[in-house]
């Protein structure tokens, strides 16, 4: 489905973003062993520098834009999301802010069709991943979730699995191709800024890590299936400030390779990480715009009241 979903403009854009990404893993290449032997060649590896290692290849993938059209979500008779139109631009971080219960979590759960996993929940409208509607009857929900990953509020590594197995879980559970699993895991852990901390104890249980490390493990886990979009549902609300800072730095690095939509309760966090910010209220989208604008000169008085702390 991703093959069909990709329009020519994405293909056009890919070389730029790739050259942009190659710079960052170049530092990794000095300590990471090259593991190209036997790996199937891809467009990216062909274009990569001669000493480019496996992690480079996995990273050389750009995000896709997502557009919601008249998206409505229901729990039984309740309607927490009431017809929302918004565009999440490719390789940008969009923050969704709003008071508790305004429907922001429900909204992002609709994007990768996790919302419908709750009994009695359903969604209406369109979620267009690079022009392709993920709610189209012909679309395989499993494929949607491989393209649109998700990180949850509470870090939840699989308790029966080691650190390695947690990251490998995506490729193992989701797809048939497992080739070069080690390189894939290493690449995902490096991208999640966790490799240095766990490289010597990959066989230990994932649940033994600290909260912040567990959350980065969860991010690595979702990166291991090479998604184009990552949804984050208050990923730092269970973490201390230092762990939060690390995740925020990570988000900044990741946007070269994926599109990020982050729901946050914390307006300072939105201001720190997001390129664009959307303000939701009572299931409706009040305002979307560049983060700077939303926080300094919002066009809607309700947004101004919220960001200046008059309610919420």
């Amino acid at each position, binding site marked *: 489905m991703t093959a069909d979903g990709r329009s020519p403009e994405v293909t056009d854009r890919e070389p730029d973003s790739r050259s942009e990404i190659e710079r960052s893993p170049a530092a990794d290449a000095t300590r990471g062993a090259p593991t190209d032997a036997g790996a199937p060649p891809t467009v990216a590896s062909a274009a990569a520098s001669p000493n480019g290692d496996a992690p480079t290849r996995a990273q050389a993938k750009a995000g896709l834009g997502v557009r919601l059209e008249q998206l409505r979500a229901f729990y039984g008779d309740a309607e927490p999301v009431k017809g929302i139109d918004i565009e999440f631009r490719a390789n940008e971080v969009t923050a969704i802010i709003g008071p508790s219960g305004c429907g922001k979590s429900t909204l992002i759960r609709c994007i*990768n069709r*996790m919302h419908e*996993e709750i*009994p*009695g929940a359903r969604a209406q409208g369109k979620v267009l991943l690079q022009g392709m509607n993920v709610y189209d009857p012909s679309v395989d929900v*499993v*494929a*949607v*979730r*491989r*393209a649109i*990953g*998700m990180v*949850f509020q*509470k870090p*939840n590594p*699989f*308790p*029966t699995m080691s650190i390695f197995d947690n990251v490998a*879980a*995506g490729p*193992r*559970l*989701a*797809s048939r191709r497992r080739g070069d699993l080690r390189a894939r895991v290493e690449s995902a852990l490096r991208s999640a800024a966790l490799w240095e901390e766990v490289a010597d104890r990959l066989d230990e249980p994932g*649940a033994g890590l600290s909260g912040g490390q567990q959350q980065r493990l*969860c991010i690595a*886990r*979702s990166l291991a*299936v090479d998604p184009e979009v990552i949804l984050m549902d208050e990923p730092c609300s269970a973490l201390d400030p230092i762990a939060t800072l690390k995740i925020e730095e990570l988000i900044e690095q990741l946007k070269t390779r994926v599109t990020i939509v982050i729901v946050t309760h914390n307006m300072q966090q939105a201001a720190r990480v997001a390129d664009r910010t959307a303000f939701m209220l009572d299931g409706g989208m009040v305002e979307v715009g560049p983060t700077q604008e939303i926080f300094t000169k919002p066009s809607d008085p309700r947004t101004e009241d919220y960001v200046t702390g008059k309610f919420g």
Partner: protein
Amino acid sequence: MSTPGASSESLARFAVSRARRRRDRLAHGTILAGTVIALIPLMLIVYYLLIKGLGSWSASFFTTDPTGNTFFKNSNIGGIKSALLGTLEMVALASAMSIPLGIGVAVWLVEYGRTSWFAHTVRFAVDMLTGVPSIVFGLFVYIVLVVGTGSSFAGYKGSVALALLMLPVVIRSGEVILLLVPEGLRESALALGAPRWRVIFSVVLPTALPGMVTGVLLAVARAAGETAPLLFTAASTLKTNTDLGQFMNSLPVQIYNDVTSPTTSLVERAWGAALALVTIILLLNVFARLIARRSRLA
């Protein structure tokens, strides 16, 4: 007033009154007495089993079949080999039937049926089955598999009765444990793009496994101790046999037969068999607890 007087006065403000202390002691004493009273029968059972049962234990007690020869006072009555092996065989077959089926039902209830009307109906039926007396399962199998087929008693028919008895216990305990698996684990596995069946096999069941083993072993222990479902399904016999299509002896039924006989040596053998049965069940329980301790769920 001097300083010490003032301090003791202020301390008195926080002192426990004599009446309250008395009531506290009385309440503590009552609860302790209740606990001791509840423990007495348990201790007595174990005590009598050990006193009366250990005497008949010997190597030949476990390695010989009952002879059925009770005519003379000093004739060799034999041991419990056929009953011990019969119990193990029938319980093993019953487990092989009820455990996969029961866990399957539990998985369906938790992962697929959820709150549908059919799931509610199944839960109601399972709860009813839990309350059905064990002899009713025996009667049911007797009517269907013995009378209904016009054939005779057989070990596998006993196993079917035991399996029916175990099934609701396995389903219910399995369901409770599966519900303890955090929803976040399923969600994050689904969000990785894993199909639901893979989520169940690779994430949910491994996480639930230790708890499931506990519930299953308790069901096995319950089945091993049942007499009523076996009385007119597997009946009893003297010879050890490995053919589940034949009459089959079992510990509970042999205890029942021995203890109702007028021969003293048979009653003594019943005590020995009872001790063996309780030991098996105790071992299963200890095993279940050891596994539960390794559980990763709360």
